[in-house]
Every structure is written in C-alpha cells, then in structure tokens.
C-alpha cells in the first residue's frame, strides 16, 4: 500500500526533526513563547523517568487522559495503528490551533495524503522562506503503521496541556487527550 521510497523520506525527515530539537523556538511565530517554555522542552534519553505507549487510531488516541508530574521526563512511544497519517503533538489549545493551519496547508498541497507523507512536497518553498517541513520538536508526525518516539520534559503545571493530532479536522473530531498534572 505504501510507496517504497516514502519511508526513506520519512526517516530523513524524522532525523531532521530530531536535529532541530535544539532550535526549539519557533517555526510558527505568534503564540506565546512564554507558554511554550513553561510547558516544557524536549528531553534527553538519559533523563527519561518513564515510558508511555500511545496508540493512534483513525481518528483517536488509545488513551485520552494521562497523569504526569511536574519536572518529569517521559518517553512517548507512539504507534500509528490507523490507515491515515496522524500526529502526536504536545501543546495548549492555542498552540494546536496555530499548528492546524500548517497541517491544513500540507494536506492541501499533497504533502500529506491518506496514510502517506510526501517529504518532497513538504520541503517545497512556500514563498516566504518557509517550507512545510514538519520539524516542531513538540510533535511527531507518523505515516500509517509507523512508530516514533518523543521525549519530553514537563516543567511546572500548565493548565489545558493537551496532546493532539492537528491533521485537518482530527483535533475537532476528538483526536486529542489531556495531561493532568499530579501534586
């Protein structure tokens, strides 16, 4: 079902995404950098306190509520069990909303289609020096059947911190879950 070349592209894109972990802030300007910092940052493998498996289905997460501690570093092992591309993105509702515009663009330009990601289209120049490269450190974008990993260190408790899929309509249809900070 999947085109053969795609996974290579995906891998490349994925490493690119890993690489850009350090340059956290921010491909899409406009929504609270402060909020971004307080919600945490990419963690290092040696800091990981625990791992959580996340299954992504069409179009929902296997778990929809996660309890976490402030300061905890979690390895999210995310598997896309659906037939469509899905995302696992950590953020506030506002951040997700901003991200959705970009995802919309990706779909409209054919960078994401059904269960596949077209990395070539992703790197297409959008005219203002931006590409649609999905390199946000707080999110994973996975093709159908793909597995990925996101290590995240949570800072102080943030209200409304969610994990979400920002593919067009997925968040609105309910493909999101809530982080609950434990005392």
């Amino acid at each position: 079902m999947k085109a053969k070349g795609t996974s290579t592209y995906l891998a490349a894109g994925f490493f690119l995404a890993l690489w850009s972990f350090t340059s956290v802030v921010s491909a899409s300007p406009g929504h609270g950098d402060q909020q971004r910092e307080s919600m945490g940052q990419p963690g290092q493998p040696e800091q990981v306190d625990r791992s959580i498996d996340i299954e992504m289905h069409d179009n929902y997460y296997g778990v929809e509520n996660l309890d976490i501690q402030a300061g905890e570093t979690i390895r999210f092992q995310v598997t896309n069990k659906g037939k469509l591309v899905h995302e696992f993105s950590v953020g506030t509702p506002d951040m997700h909303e901003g991200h959705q515009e970009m995802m919309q663009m990706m779909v409209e330009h054919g960078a994401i289609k059904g269960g596949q990601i077209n990395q070539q289209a992703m790197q297409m120049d959008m005219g203002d020096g931006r590409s649609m490269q999905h390199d946000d450190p707080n999110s994973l974008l996975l093709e159908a059947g793909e597995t990925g990993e996101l290590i995240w260190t949570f800072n102080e408790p943030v209200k409304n911190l969610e994990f979400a899929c920002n593919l067009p309509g997925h968040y609105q249809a309910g493909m999101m879950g809530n982080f609950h900070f434990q005392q």
Partner: protein
Amino acid sequence: MRTLKKIAVFTGSLLFPAILLAGEYELSVDPVVIDTGDFTKIGVGYNGSSPGPTLRMKEGEIATIRVTNNLDVDTSIHWHGLIVPADQDGVPGISFDGIKPGETFTYTFPVRQSGTYWYHSHSGFQEPDGAYGSLVIEAEDREPFRYDREYVVQLADKHPDAGAQIMHNLKNSAEYYNRTEQTLGDFFSDIGENGFLATVKDRWDWGNMRMMKTDIEDVQGFTGLINGRGPDQNWTALFEPGERVRLRLINSSASTYFDFRIPGMKMTVVAADGNNIQPVVVDELRLAVAETYDVIVQPREDKAYTLFAESMGRTGYARGTLAPREGMTAAVPEMREPPLLTMADMGHGGMDHSNMSDTEMSGSDMDHSSMGHGSMDQSAMDAADPFYAPGSGLLPQAASGGKFLSYADLRAQQPRYDYREPEREIVLRLTGNMERYIWSINGVKFEDAEPLRLQYGERVRIRFINETMMAHPMHLHGMWSLLNVGAQGDNPVKHVISVNPNTEVAFDVEVDEPGEWAFHCHIFNHASAGMFLKVVVEGGEA
C-alpha cells in the same frame, strides 16, 4: 462477499439465537395533526406524530419492525440509506405490494452498517404529508470521533398544501408556487445597475429560452422545520460549555435544499450519508434533499447558538437553538438575498467545462492537490467548486465568508470497497420540461422507461448529465453510491448524489445486491412526475 456475510449472519441467527442481537420496533402509520407554528394541517405520521420517533438500531443486530397501517389507503416504509434485502426495501410495485389499510407488515433485515439515516413512506403523497422519521444506528466498533452528547436535527419543508394538491397545482402551472419571480421593479433596478441595453438583452435572452432565473425551488411557501418544530417553536438542544456535541443532520424535505450553519461556531463534518468521512472543518454546508451529514461542534461559551438552515433559494428557513439552558435564544439571522440562475446553469454556456468534476479530478494526485492552491489563478480556484457549473448562480458561499463544504472535500474515512475500475459506464441524462412540469431520465418518464439492468458482481460507473436548470438529488436504493471525487478508493460512500444544473457527476456502484430497486430524484414531485427508474440486478441469488 457481502452476501456471504449476510448468509453468515443468518446462519448465526439459527445456531446462536441467544447471542445474536435482536432489535424489535413497532411503528403505526397514523393520521396526525401537524402544527408548525405558522399553520396547522392534517397529515400522516408515525406512532401519532410527525416526524415519527427516532429508531435506534445497533449494527450487527437483526431488526424486526412491525408496521401497522391505520390509514384508509395503502402505505409503505422505505429505510433510506439502509442496505437491506430487496423485499425489505419498502417500495410498492418494486419491493413488495405495499401495506394495506389495517394490515401489520413485519420488516426483518440484518443491520450491516452504522450512522445517521431516516425512513419515510414510499406510497402516494405520504412523505410530503409528514410520513418520515429518523433512524440512528449505533456502531459496533468505536467511531473515529468523540462526542459527549448527540442530537438528531431533522430538517423538513412543511407546506400548508397537501402533497397531492401541490403536484396538482404544479401540473396546472409549473410556477404556481414561485413567488420569487423577477418583477417590473427588478427590471428597473437592474437598469440602474447594469444599464438599459444590458438589462433588456438579459431579459430578452431569458425570454427567448422561456426559462426563469428563479427556478430554484419549485415549491415555495413552506415552513422550515427542525424535528417537527417551526422557527417560532424553536426546537432547543442543551449542552454544557466545552462539550462536544454531535448533530445528526438529516434533510427530510420533499423538495428543499437547506444551507445549514451555526453562526459563531465551526462545525466538523465527520459523516456524510451515514458513512464516516475524513473530518472537514466548515462554517456552513448544503444538504441536498434526503442527504444526511453528521457534524461535531464544541460550543465553549456559556451562551446560546442558533441552528439556522436557509433554503437554497432563500424562500424559507428552519431554526433551532443550541443552548446551555432551556429558554435561552440567540439572534436569528436574516435570510440572504435569493440567488438567481445564470446562463452557466442553462446548458447553453460552458458545458465543455462542466465535466471538470470528473476529468480533472480523476487525474494524478498532484492534479487534485494543485486545484486548491497551486499555480492556477488562486482567487478563481478558491471560488470554484467543481460540482457546480463555472459561473453558476447556485454556487454557495458561507455567510461567515469562511469554508463552505463541497463534495470535493469528501473522503471516505474507511472505504467500504477496495477500489477497482468500473467495467462499464452508463450515461443518464437528467431531463425535463419545466413548463409542463415533466421530469425524466434520458428524456423518458418512469412509466415509459425500460428498467436499468445491472449484472450482479460488476462494478459500473453511472454518469449523470444534468440537462435541466434544477439540481437533482439522485437516490439509488439498495446499493451504495461511490461518488467520484477523483480519490478512487477514498471516494465517499453515499446514498444521494446531488447533481447541479449543467454539470456532470459520476459515481460507481459495486453491484452486490440482487433484486429490483428504485432509483430516482428525491425531490418528491420530480420523482412523481417521472424522474424515476427501476433498476434490475440480474444474477446473484435473490
């Protein structure tokens, strides 16, 4: 393969009767009084009311529905959008003989799908007279979306005249109910706007065709209903702020397309005609007659929202409220200006472009994706919906200026069939004579038409060419209509295909149900006037 499944279900029911779900339902067909707030009339309903009760079935069960006819004429119930054996489909003269006065008829069929559907009489003029209700099937598996509560929002165009009287009047004068015709005043204001010569030429051109720009809704004068309640009766649904609410929108109108919106709120469309689609966030959507759409909304504020459904021709509206508490209301918008058909809708201009919906879209992936934003003239492409003739007067625009759902946005969430190329194509021209109020397919009315013969096991493509100036919501009974949006295996799975004036629309059918089926325009009076075909599936074990 589907047949095998069916046999398996039936065999299962013999071997494990206790395990298998059985759903039992009772419906009586009754004379009822319908009160829209604007007028009161005698009509036909179910279990004493119109609309009838919401039937809630479960996917995987065997549904048994006992229908008792308390009328003094024959009746029938068709399960709109349900895939049932041919003898359970409820069309008198095709599926069965109908239900006699006083008789109780028992329908039995396995429920092999989930989602939002409806049911209605297929006898006489009972459907426009009120014989309709909603049908909700709970999914066996988890659905690809979440919601905290759900409501059926069943739209209808209740007319004070009885259905038979409407047909009678239309036959005597096709413009009997048209009260949006262009007047002398419009003539003068057009002169002011476009100049004398241009206006005279415009009127001359239309006068030569003897066509009216206002032939958009041929039955005006209705009151729009939501779940049986008129705008002043304000059907109200409750929510807690922040909840996701699933609205099961059903257009059970006899003749009216509705443009539905909730001012101040985006809607996420998650299903079309009962089948899940990849979600699309919209500001507004058009429901052709007999279509259903499921939308999810998430009202976050502690305030009321208006559910507003304007008819496509802006001659009437349905209105309800989504509110945190009973008794709250929100502003009810004014209806927008009635649209006017253009020459593009007439078949005289632009026919060569109108097949774009297919030829352009069945191309490569990039072809399609470039239609949205690519190198083409952006503003022109943004405005265009390939399912309307370029320059069509019916092209909808969201009141908010935002996104209006198009057929081109629909992608199946989970295709029911693997894609395969159709083995043959059948062209059906949608034809008619507005002046005489005759509607037909390929120029032939139902009573004169040979049945359309399909072979069990084949996949056919049916291509509609709408040669009339009205939109026609075409409904094939018994088998799914795989609307061709150029997405092959992801083409949406529907039961009504709306074909706009002067356009071509194609859909594929996996011919997997033996027997005889109805295939017709779901505008009630168009079907009655002849836009109706019998489909015979040859082969397969009936």
